[in-house]
């Protein structure tokens, strides 16, 4: 009965103070909606595709972290030994898939796509039903069976315009005809970037040696043992394939079991998700403090009423309940409105993302108000209720009835309440100014980096990786020969402006004249193929004579030459290296610094010749430049690649210009998001500060009346009250500034000098000043308003 009465009273109060209600609703709805959209956005991006197939939520995949060699995947040739391992035998269900890059063409043009070779159990394992047609049967894997293929929803829509009669049609994959037998449903695309699935008929038809092993986790104990056993197995395998001189016994391969999401984010999804959630909780915390402070002020204004209730017999719980009821009405109504707005917001997000990225978006990027978001909304609103409603209600229920009834809202209780309110204000200012400083600095850094990037230099620049199909085919000599042939092929083909094959990840350290490892800037160290031609400042390019018979030679960039030798003549000097085999190499050429897309990220360069520093791993990088559109560039590259005597497998061809544009789009979006979120947080904070200022002024109206009656000038009163409130806001700003500057100082190393401390300090300080100005304004307005009231009116108000 009492609860009903309290609700009725709460509704009456809410309706009576409509401006306050709207303000509360605005803050609650706004922060909750932003939080929910933010949560849904990141959850959809990071987690929503973790369940592939309705019946297989527990699918896991192995990630190989190999510090011994560059081999980071299992190999087909390992399978017989793997099958014999006891730990593997304990697995009821597991299978392997072979990722591949395939060339899909018709009579006029072609394009490369990521695909997967799978066995006949694959679709059943994932428990997926086809969107159209059928999946594989055992007959499809018989040697003489016709080539068949399952295509993705993306290919179906883009190559066949979503035509229902796609089943039975033919498509050419890697110059072979395949009959399309099925279409994969959009929301079950696995592996996530695969656009088509080809039958893995046996070793001889496998396109590459690398495979991924997926399995269903039986339990955590088995999984831990499996990880341990496979790590040992892989370490042995890797150690056997490198020479004894290179063997470092303390290095071991780590095989980790991951969910599909973890695999795609290299195990960092939880970190990224946590970071985003921390941001969301921070916004919610700011708004909760804000709401709490406003409710707190409102409760304090009504403290006399609470004292009357207590005097006529209301217990403490009942007083709390009466205030909580009002807060609960705010929370529930805000929660409902926020859910509706979130739904609308997610629909808009879908629309804009589709408009911007279309088919380039992963299939699972579909944002909708789902159960998890509703559950999170309940969690968040409970958090708001606890922090912003219950806490002030409980805190303010501890009053002395006698004091309040005699003294109104002033006296001891008023002072206590005021102190808490001001502390909350300090905390709020700390949080919001820190958040704004951080977001504005990140936004500024991203904006300047974007400004530094000369995207036009990337037009027509592509890169990919090459490897021999099997490890047994690979040898250093053969790699040098193939790389040279490829470069010659690209040089002779008019489609190419430039082409080079190189190997990075060379474990060499450049030493300074003092014998210390040079760490001032990142050095790109590459071994490059025959016919490597760089624009030189002085010296010469590599020649055929720079081979293993000759003394090691090196070309370095002019920036490195200056860094190591200053204005000295560099040619003929030796570059000192921390390497047992190659302690030094003679500098034969000084290259003009390679244009970097990010001016502030210009790196030093060191080049070796393949003929001297031959690839020791079955992996080489290719970079080529054309003036053709992407599809024709890919075609030209595959054409040259096809002429080689050995078949080399390529990974996805990376279009630098396209990537740059996507990156710039992402940069711009992130900057907008920071501006939006930061602006919203600041608005929330200013509303809170203004409301608190107003509340404090209202409470002090009698004092203002007395001071004015006694002859105080308006300016003196304004200064007095601004100073009173400013103490706590300045405390908040100081704390946030200290934390921010310390973090910036620590972050300098993390950015490796790309973002200097002065930039972060400057961006943060400007933001701090702006926040300070905004806070002063929010404090000034209520005081200004209060002095417009006649002293007599102020005195009567008491």
């Amino acid at each position: 009965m009492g609860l009903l009465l309290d609700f009725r009273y709460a509704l009456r109060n809410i309706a009576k103070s409509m401006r306050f209600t709207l303000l509360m609703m605005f803050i609650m709805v706004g922060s909750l909606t932003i939080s929910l959209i933010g949560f849904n956005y990141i959850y959809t991006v990071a987690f929503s595709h973790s369940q592939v197939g309705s019946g297989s939520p527990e699918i896991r995949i192995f990630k190989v972290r190999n510090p011994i060699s560059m081999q980071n995947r299992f190999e087909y040739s390992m399978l017989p030994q793997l099958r014999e391992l006891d730990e593997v035998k304990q697995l009821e269900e597991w299978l392997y898939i072979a990722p591949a890059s395939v060339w899909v063409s018709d009579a006029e043009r072609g394009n490369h796509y990521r695909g997967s070779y799978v066995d006949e159990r694959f679709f059943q394992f994932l428990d997926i039903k086809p969107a159209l047609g059928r999946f594989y049967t055992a007959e499809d894997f018989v040697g003489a069976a016709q080539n068949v293929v399952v295509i993705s929803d993306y290919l179906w829509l883009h190559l066949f315009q979503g035509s229902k009669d796609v089943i039975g049609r033919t498509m050419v994959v890697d110059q072979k005809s395949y009959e399309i037998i099925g279409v994969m449903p959009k929301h079950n695309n696995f592996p996530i970037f695969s656009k088509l699935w080809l039958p893995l008929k046996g070793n001889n038809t496998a396109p590459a040696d690398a495979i991924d092993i997926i399995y269903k986790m039986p339990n955590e104990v088995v999984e831990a043992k499996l990880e341990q056993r496979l790590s040992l197995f892989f370490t042995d395998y890797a150690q056997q394939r490198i020479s004894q001189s290179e063997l470092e016994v303390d290095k071991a391969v780590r095989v980790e079991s991951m969910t599909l999401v973890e695999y795609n984010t290299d195990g960092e999804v939880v970190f990224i998700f946590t970071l985003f959630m921390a941001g969301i909780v921070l916004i919610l915390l700011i708004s909760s403090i804000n709401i709490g402070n406003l409710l707190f002020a409102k409760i304090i204004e009504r403290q006399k009423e609470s004292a009357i209730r207590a005097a006529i017999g209301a217990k403490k719980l009942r007083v709390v309940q009466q205030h909580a009821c009002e807060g609960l009405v705010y929370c529930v109504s805000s929660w409902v409105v926020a859910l509706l707005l979130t739904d609308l917001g997610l629909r808009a997000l879908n629309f804009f993302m589709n408009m911007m990225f279309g088919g380039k978006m992963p299939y699972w990027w579909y944002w909708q108000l789902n159960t998890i978001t509703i559950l999170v909304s309940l969690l968040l609103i409970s958090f708001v209720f606890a922090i912003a409603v219950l806490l002030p209600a409980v805190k303010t229920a501890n009053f002395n009835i006698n004091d309040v009834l005699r003294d109104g809202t002033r006296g001891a209780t008023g002072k206590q309440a005021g102190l808490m309110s001001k502390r909350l204000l300090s905390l709020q200012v700390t949080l919001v100014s820190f958040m704004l400083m951080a977001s504005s600095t990140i936004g500024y850094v991203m904006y300047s980096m974007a400004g530094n990037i000369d995207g036009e230099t990337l037009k027509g620049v592509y890169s990919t990786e090459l490897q021999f199909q099997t490890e047994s085919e690979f040898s250093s000599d053969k790699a040098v020969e193939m790389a040279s042939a490829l470069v010659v092929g690209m040089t002779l083909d008019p489609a190419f402006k430039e082409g080079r094959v190189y190997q990075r990840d060379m474990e060499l350290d450049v030493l300074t004249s003092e014998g210390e490892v040079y760490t001032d800037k990142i050095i790109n160290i590459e071994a490059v193929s025959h016919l490597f031609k760089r624009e030189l400042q002085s010296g010469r390019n590599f020649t055929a004579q720079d081979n293993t018979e000759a003394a090691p030679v090196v070309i370095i960039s002019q920036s490195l030459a200056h860094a190591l030798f200053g204005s000295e003549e560099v040619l003929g000097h030796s570059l000192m290296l921390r390497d047992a085999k190659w302690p030094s190499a003679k500098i034969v050429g000084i290259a003009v610094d390679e244009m970097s897309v990010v001016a502030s990220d210009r790196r030093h360069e060191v080049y070796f010749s393949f003929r001297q520093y031959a690839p020791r791993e079955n992996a080489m990088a290719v970079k080529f430049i054309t003036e053709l559109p992407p599809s024709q560039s890919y075609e030209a590259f595959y054409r040259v690649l096809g002429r080689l005597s050995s078949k080399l497998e390529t990974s996805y061809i990376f279009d630098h210009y396209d990537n740059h544009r996507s990156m710039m789009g992402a940069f711009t979006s992130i900057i907008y998001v920071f501006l939006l979120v930061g602006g919203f947080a600041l608005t929330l904070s200013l509303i809170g500060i203004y409301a608190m200022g107003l509340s404090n002024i209202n409470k002090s109206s009698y004092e203002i009346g007395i001071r004015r009656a006694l002859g105080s000038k308006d300016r003196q009163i304004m200064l007095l009250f601004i100073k009173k409130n400013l103490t706590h806001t300045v405390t908040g700003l100081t704390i946030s500034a200290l934390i921010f500057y310390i973090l910036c100082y620590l972050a300098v190393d993390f950015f490796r000098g790309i973002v200097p401390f002065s930039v972060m300090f400057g961006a943060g300080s400007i933001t701090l000043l702006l926040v300070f100005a905004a806070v002063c304004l929010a404090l000034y307005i209520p005081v200004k308003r209060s002095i417009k009231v006649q002293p007599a009116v102020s005195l009567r108000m008491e």
Partner: protein
Amino acid sequence: MNSVIQLNNIEKRFQTDEIATQALDGINLVVEPGEFVAITGPSGCGKSTLLSILGLIDEPSNGEYFISGNQAFNLSSDERAHIRANHIGFIFQAFNLISDLNVLENVMLPLTYIGGMSQKEMEQKAKDALAMVGLENRINHFPSQLSGGQQQRAAVARALINSPDLILADEPTGNLDSNNAQQVLGLLSELHAAGKTICMVTHDIESTTYASRVISMLDGTILRDKKQLEHASKVVGA
């Protein structure tokens, strides 16, 4: 018969920063059922503090307090609230009606804290109490729509609704003109005549004539405690 109030050596000290004030200094007092006690004295003598302690809205620094024979010191906040809701009715100088509740809701408020009654029962009791003070036709009015006298009568109705053992009135006529003051004092006399125990703080000599016993205080002590017989004529006269 048990006394309604028994105070044994009650002391109250206020300490603010460096200044200590002894508001009550060894008060011993027994109030029997059916008495109408007027507590009087100059400002700062401790009469309102004494009333606050009697009403359990403040705690003594020392001493014992029994209400209707039950110990009323060293109680928790909720236990004191329970006693206030069930055994005490308050009338304040400033009426202390809740401005956002109408007269009927204000009057039935104590019943909502006692619990155990339906809304209909509570409303009926509140209407009866309002009829007693002559406000039956003002039940849907809000406090701001009533005169001072009417507001105080509503406060009297609120003080009566839980059929308290003790009615405490703190300067009930302090904010009223003489006509309305007469009406309110008349009401209190009627309640006294009906057997209610009343303690009233006042510094209006005229008001004390309605009481059956007058306690005069000075500097936190009881200076004089006098029973008077003439009050009956006031009741008749009212």
